[in-house]
C-alpha cells in the first residue's frame, strides 16, 4: 500500500494550519509525556510494592502538603499556556482580514452551494485563489450544517437563523476535502465536496468563464421582481428607508436603539421586517419569510451592499 493512501497527518494548506498543528504537537508532547509518566509510575510502584508476606499491611504515611500543592499549581500553569495559545488562534480565526474576497455559501440537505460576487455559482465545489484571504458568508436553508475544511484546519456551523462568516487564506495550490461536520440527516456523509485552490492567473481565467451577470445585478432583478422598488424608491418620498449607502452604517430604530446595518440586519429586515423598524417609518413592510430562499437572499444582500450613497466614492 502506498503511503499516500494511508496518511497519518492531514494536508497543511492554509495560513493557520501550521499554527494549529504546532499547538497540537505541543499538547501531544506535554499531555502524552505526563500520561506516560503516570502509567510508568503506576506500574513501577505496583511492581515494587507488590504484596509480600512481610508487607501484608501498608505503611501509613501522611502526604507532605507541598506535594498536593505542587500537583494542583503545576498543571494549572500548564493549562493556562494551552488556554492562551488556543484563545490566540481562535481570535485569529474570528478576525476576518479587510481585503478578503467575498464568497457566499448556502447549506441545504444535502449539498453545498457557493456563489461568487461575480455571478459564478457552483455546487459542492469551491474555487478560490491561493494566498488571498477568502471570507465565506453563509446560512442554511434547512437544518444546521457545518462547513469543514480539514486542510485549512477550520470549520463553522451554518445556521438557518442568521448569517455567519468564516475565513481562510489557502497557501498551497491543490484540491482539498469539504465535509459537512454537523449531522444533518440521511445523506450527511454525502454532503461533501472539494475546494480547488488555484494560481491567481488560473483563478482569473476561471472567473472569466461566462456568468450570468454579477451577484448584485442578479439581486437587482430580484429587487424588481419582489416589488421592493415600490417603497424603497431611493429618495425621501419613498414609504421605505433609503437603501443607498445603508450597508455598514448605524441605523436608529423606532424604539431609539441604534444598530449596525450588517448582513444579519439586512437578512432580518427582509424576513421579519417588524423586528427592527427604522425611526420615522411605519411597520408596513410584509414579511418575505418562506418566499425568498437563502440563495436569493444572498443576491439581494449583494445588491443592497452594492448600493453606494449618492455622491459617495464607489
Amino acid at each position, binding site marked *: 500500500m502506498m503511503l499516500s493512501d494511508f496518511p497519518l497527518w492531514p494536508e497543511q494548506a492554509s495560513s493557520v494550519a501550521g499554527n494549529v498543528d504546532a499547538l497540537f504537537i505541543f499538547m501531544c508532547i506535554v499531555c502524552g509525556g505526563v500520561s506516560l509518566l503516570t502509567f510508568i509510575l*503506576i506500574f513501577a510502584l505496583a511492581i515494587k510494592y507488590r504484596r509480600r508476606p512481610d508487607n501484608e499491611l501498608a505503611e501509613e504515611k501522611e502526604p507532605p502538603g507541598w506535594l498536593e500543592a505542587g500537583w494542583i499549581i503545576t498543571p494549572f500553569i500548564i493549562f493556562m499556556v494551552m488556554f492562551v495559545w488556543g484563545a490566540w488562534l481562535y481570535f485569529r480565526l474570528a478576525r476576518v482580514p479587510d481585503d478578503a474576497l467575498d464568497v457566499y455559501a448556502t447549506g441545504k440537505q444535502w449539498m453545498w452551494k457557493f456563489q461568487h460576487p461575480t455571478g459564478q455559482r457552483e455546487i459542492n465545489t469551491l474555487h478560490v485563489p491561493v494566498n488571498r484571504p477568502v471570507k465565506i458568508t453563509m446560512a442554511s436553508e434547512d437544518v444546521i450544517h457545518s462547513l469543514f475544511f*480539514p486542510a485549512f484546519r477550520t470549520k463553522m456551523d451554518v445556521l438557518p437563523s442568521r448569517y455567519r462568516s468564516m475565513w481562510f487564506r489557502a497557501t498551497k495550490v491543490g484540491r482539498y476535502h469539504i465535509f459537512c461536520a454537523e449531522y444533518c440527516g440521511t445523506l450527511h456523509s454525502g454532503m461533501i465536496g472539494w475546494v480547488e485552490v488555484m494560481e491567481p492567473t488560473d483563478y482569473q481565467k476561471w472567473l472569466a468563464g461566462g456568468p450570468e451577470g454579477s451577484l448584485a445585478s442578479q439581486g437587482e432583478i430580484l429587487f424588481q421582481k419582489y416589488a421592493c422598488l415600490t417603497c424603497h424608491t431611493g429618495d425621501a418620498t419613498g414609504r421605505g428607508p433609503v437603501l443607498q449607502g445603508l450597508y455598514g452604517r448605524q441605523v436608529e430604530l423606532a424604539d431609539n436603539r441604534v444598530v449596525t446595518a450588517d448582513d444579519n440586519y439586512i437578512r432580518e429586515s427582509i424576513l421579519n421586517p417588524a423586528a427592527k423598524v427604522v425611526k420615522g417609518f411605519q411597520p408596513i413592510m410584509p414579511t418575505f419569510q418562506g418566499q425568498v430562499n437563502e440563495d436569493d437572499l444572498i443576491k439581494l444582500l449583494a445588491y443592497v451592499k452594492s448600493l453606494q450613497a449618492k455622491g459617495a466614492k464607489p
Partner: protein
Amino acid sequence: MTTATLHDVRFIEPEKTRNYINHDFGVLSWLLTRDHKRIAILYLFSVTIMFMLGGFFATMMRIELLTPEGDVLTSDTYNKFFTLHGVVMVFFFLIPVIPAVLGNFILPIMLGAKDLAFPRINLLSWYVYMAAAVIGLYVIIVGGVDTGWTFYTPFSTQYSNTHVFGTTFAGFLAGFSSILTGLNFMVTIHRMRAPGLTWYRLPLFVWAMYATSIVQLLATPVLAITLVMLMFERAFGVGIFDPALGGDPVLYQHMFWFYSHPAVYIMILPAMGVASEVVAAFTRKKIFGYKFVAFSSLAIAFLGFLVWAHHLFVAGISVYSALIFAFLSYFVAVPSAIKVFNWTATLYKASVSWQTPMLYIMGFIGLFTIGGVTGLFLAALGLDVHVTDTYFVVAHFHYVMVGGVVMAYLAGIHYWWPKITGRMYPEWWARLAALLVFVGFNLTFLPQFVLGYLGMPRRYHAYAPEFQVLNVMSSAGASILAVGYALPLVYLIWSLKGSRKAGPNPWGAAGLEWATSSPPPKENFHETPVVTWDAYDYPQFLKAMGETQNV
C-alpha cells in the same frame, strides 16, 4: 497482626442467619421488594440488557465502517443505529449503571444503615426506569429515531420523520429515575450514617455518590424542561427553537448541554468513587490526600455546571463567551488531575495486590487520563475548531465513558461480587477478560484520534477512502473488546453455582461492607455498627474487629 484477623467478622455470625437472597422467595418478592440490595439486582439485570442492546448497535456500526462505501446498512439505518447506540448507552446504561447497581447495593451498607432513606421511592425509580426503557424499546421496534442522541433542533423538530417524540419522552422519563436515586442517596448520606461515622470517616465512594446526587438533582430537571420544550415544538408548532417561528436553534444547544455536560460527571464521579475504594482495598492503605480526593468530587460537581458552552465553540456563540467557557473548562480539569495523582501516590510503599479489580482500576486510571488530557485539546479554542465534530471527539468521550466508566464498573462488579453473591469469580478468567478489554479498547479508539485529526467527521455512514486502514484497525479492536465484555457475562453467571464461597471479607479490606456476611442479611447488620476508625484506617479497623472477637 496477620491477615487472619482481617477476614474476621464483627457484626454477624453467617451460619445462623438467612441472607437477603434466601430470605424470601418468588417473583413478587423481587418485583415488590423494598430491599436496596434486591433493587440493585433488578437494576443489574436491566442495565446489562441495555448494555448488550447498545453494544449490538455499536457492532453494526463497526461492521459498516470496515469499508468506505455505505454498503452493509442504508444511510437511514446507520443514522438510526448511531442515534440508538447513544440514547441507550447514555440514558439507560452509563447514567444509572454505577449509582443504581453498585451504589444501591453498597452505599447503605457502607453507612451502616439498614436501607436507603426512602425504600419505596427506590423501587419507584426502577419502575420509572423500566417504563422509560419499555418506551425506548417500543420506539426501536416501530422504526427507531435518527436525530443523534443530542436531538439538535431544527432537525429534530422540523425535519426528522422518525420517532423523535417517543424517544425524547423516554429520555424525559429516565431522567426522573435518576433524580429519585440522587434524592434518596443524598438524604441517606445526611441522615442515616452509623454512630461514629463522621463525614471525614466516610469512604470516598460515598463522597463521590454525594457529589453525583447534587448533579442529578440540579441538572436533570433542566433536561426535562428542554425535552418538554422540544416535544411541544415538534407536536404543536410552538416556536422556541425554530427560526421560522422566531426561535433560536442555538438556544436548544445551550439548554441541552446545560444538562448533558454535568451528566458526564453523573457518569464519571461514581466511577472515580469505585476507583478510590479499589485502590484503598488492593493497596491496604489510606488513600493519599483523602480530603483532597473527597473535595475534588464536590469541585467537579460544582465546576461541571459552568462549562456547558464548550460544546458550542463553532456553533454560534461570541468569541468572548467562548473565551470564558474555555477558561472555566481548564478549571474543571484540575480536580480530576488531583485524583489521578493521589491514586498514583497511594501506591507508594503500599501492599499492592494484582487481583482483577485492581487490574481494571489500573486500566481505568490510564484510560481516564488519556480521556482527560484529550479534553484539554478540545478546550484549546483554536484547536477545537479543527477537531470538534470529528472522530477526535468520539475517541475522547469514549476514553472517558468506556475507558473510564465501564472499566470502573467492571472493577466494582468484580470487587463487590463476593459480597453481592457470596461467591468468588474465577480469578484467571477475570484477569484474561481485563487484559482483553484493555487491549481491545485501545485498539478500537486510539486510531480514532488519528482519524479525527485527519478530518474524518463523526456520524458518517460513508467516508473518504484514505480513512479505511484506521477504520479497519478500529473495527478489529472492537471485536477483541466484544470478547472481553462477553467473558465476564459467562464466568460471573457460572460462578453463582460453580465457584468457591467468598466469606465475609475475601480481600482483607477495611470498610463496613466487609464487616457483615456475604451475602449480607436482609437488614445488613444484626446490630447497629459503631464506627471507631477513619476510612481505610487498617490498624484501627483491625483493632475494632479484634475487640469484639475477643469479647
